[in-house]
């Protein structure tokens, strides 16, 4: 990897580790200090590496610098406290802080990150705030990138993150594992955040393929950490990991050299990542325990069928029934549309058109794209009208291009 790519890459993978360890050491109420020290560490790297050359082990170098900065901070803090607070005994001064090493062992790095995930995805703050904080602290996103992801202004995001941290401080959140009786409840927002992060990469408008892949792989990494820990290795976690591996297997095939999206039907199967598909299958197998069927189980099973390219009756009947169940568990417009597409494949276009007309999604361009597809070859004039409506509602160039192609093909 080139040096100019290395620092952003390390930022994605190491930022959260360092922040988590420091924050666990300092306590959540000092999360900003942990963030500042970590950012300064990367700034130091960006300033010194081009001059002195790359260190042998860049990650270890970062840990070392972060550790020293943290020690300096604790020392200053300790001296400050012992000077102004007379009640403080000699033992609580700098020497004790220094004895309490910043523990950057693999074990502590992993535990701290998982505990940080639970702290950030705490029910006392909104889902949006949880995702925002996760992107910032666990994925090292800049405010601008988060603003892009939420289609909001930087000011709004800054305020939202600030308030979220305030709330977590007020709630006296500790960086620790939840008790075993509440683990399922606490896992739910953690998994949702990881899945949203994955989708952020998978469906991102960004033309930068590397960045998009990085996001998907980050989500997979976070989820893998949950699976590797005994406390959080639950069926629904394995199901989500399986789902993401199945989906990610097409990362290479679904975008061409110019960054344009290639539709599923037109993808080159040879570009599908067989290793990811195998891993997806493995974790789907691991998820098949316990009594609860989570939405991730259903989505992983659908994703499995999507790794089977051949257009068999069996495939579409299975996908249809999985969507029927998924929608009963949790409605979403995209699931409703996909279910209707599966219905057309399993039960025929006529029935699917009747069902599609019952859906109340008239401001959704995917809805009209679907109607257009269903009408194609049955009533091409109608199909064209639907596609044109879709075209008028579509916002991104990629979507417009896809729809235009369908019109041209009529």
């Amino acid at each position, binding site marked *: 990897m080139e040096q100019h790519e290395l620092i952003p890459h390390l930022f994605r993978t190491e930022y959260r580790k360092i922040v988590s360890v420091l924050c666990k050491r300092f306590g959540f109420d000092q999360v900003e200090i942990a963030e500042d020290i970590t950012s300064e560490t990367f700034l130091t790297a960006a300033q010194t590496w081009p001059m002195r050359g790359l260190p042998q082990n860049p990650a270890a170098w970062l840990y070392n610098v972060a550790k020293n900065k943290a020690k300096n901070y604790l020392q200053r803090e300790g001296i400050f406290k012992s000077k102004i607070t007379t009640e403080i005994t000699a033992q609580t001064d700098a020497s004790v802080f220094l004895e309490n090493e910043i523990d950057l062992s693999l074990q502590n790095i992993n535990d701290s990150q998982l505990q940080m995930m639970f702290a950030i995805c705490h029910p006392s703050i909104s889902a949006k705030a949880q995702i925002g904080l996760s992107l910032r602290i666990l994925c090292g996103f800049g405010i601008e990138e988060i603003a892009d992801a939420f289609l909001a202004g930087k000011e709004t995001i800054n305020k939202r993150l600030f308030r979220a941290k305030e709330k977590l401080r007020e709630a006296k959140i500790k960086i620790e594992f939840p008790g075993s009786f509440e683990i399922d409840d606490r896992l739910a927002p953690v998994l949702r955040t990881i899945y949203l992060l994955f989708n952020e990469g998978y469906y991102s408008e960004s033309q930068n393929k590397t960045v998009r892949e990085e996001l998907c792989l980050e989500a997979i990494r976070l989820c893998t950490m949950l699976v590797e820990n005994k406390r959080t290795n639950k069926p629904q976690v394995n199901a989500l990991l399986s789902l993401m591996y199945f989906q990610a297997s097409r990362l290479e095939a679904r975008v061409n050299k110019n960054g344009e999206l290639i539709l599923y039907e037109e993808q080159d199967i040879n570009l599908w990542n067989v290793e990811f598909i195998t891993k997806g299958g493995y974790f789907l197998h691991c998820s098949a325990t316990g009594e609860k069927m989570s939405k991730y189980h259903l989505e992983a099973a659908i994703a499995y069928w999507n790794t089977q390219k051949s257009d068999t009756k069996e495939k579409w009947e299975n996908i*249809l*029934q999985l969507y029927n169940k998924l929608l*009963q568990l949790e*409605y979403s417009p995209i699931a409703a549309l996909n*279910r209707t597409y599966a219905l057309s494949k399993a039960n025929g276009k006529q029935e699917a058109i009747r069902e599609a007309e019952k859906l109340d999604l008239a401001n959704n361009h995917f809805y009209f794209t679907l109607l257009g597809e269903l009408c194609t070859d049955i009533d091409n004039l109608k199909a064209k009208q639907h596609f044109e409506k879709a075209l008028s509602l579509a916002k991104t160039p990629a979507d417009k291009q896809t729809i235009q192609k369908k019109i041209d093909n009529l």
Partner: protein
Amino acid sequence: MEEFVLIMRHQDGSKIASPEQMQIWMKQTMDWIGGIAAQNKFVAGTGLLFDDAKVVRHNGVVTNGPFGEIKETIGGYIIVKAESIDEAVEFAKGAPVLQGEGNTIEVRKIAKGDGAH
């Protein structure tokens, strides 16, 4: 938006149909419910097993099901969201169970837990 329960009354399918036929009915029912769920109008629902059913009566008398008129047996229910009883009735009309002559679906508005009922 109100909630309505659609109560399905029909014979025990396994007594009158082959496993293959049962499977077809099952798929049709799943597609019907999936269609309601795709409109974001599904709340809850389940089938009720015919085997080993009991009826508990006054004075602690317990009898085995089935229960009087066979086609009056409740085989399952689903709860839907609808603007009106008419919309709920439209959902019921699509139910595959109504292919069987004599089978019925009873549509009832669910009382809100607001003390008014």
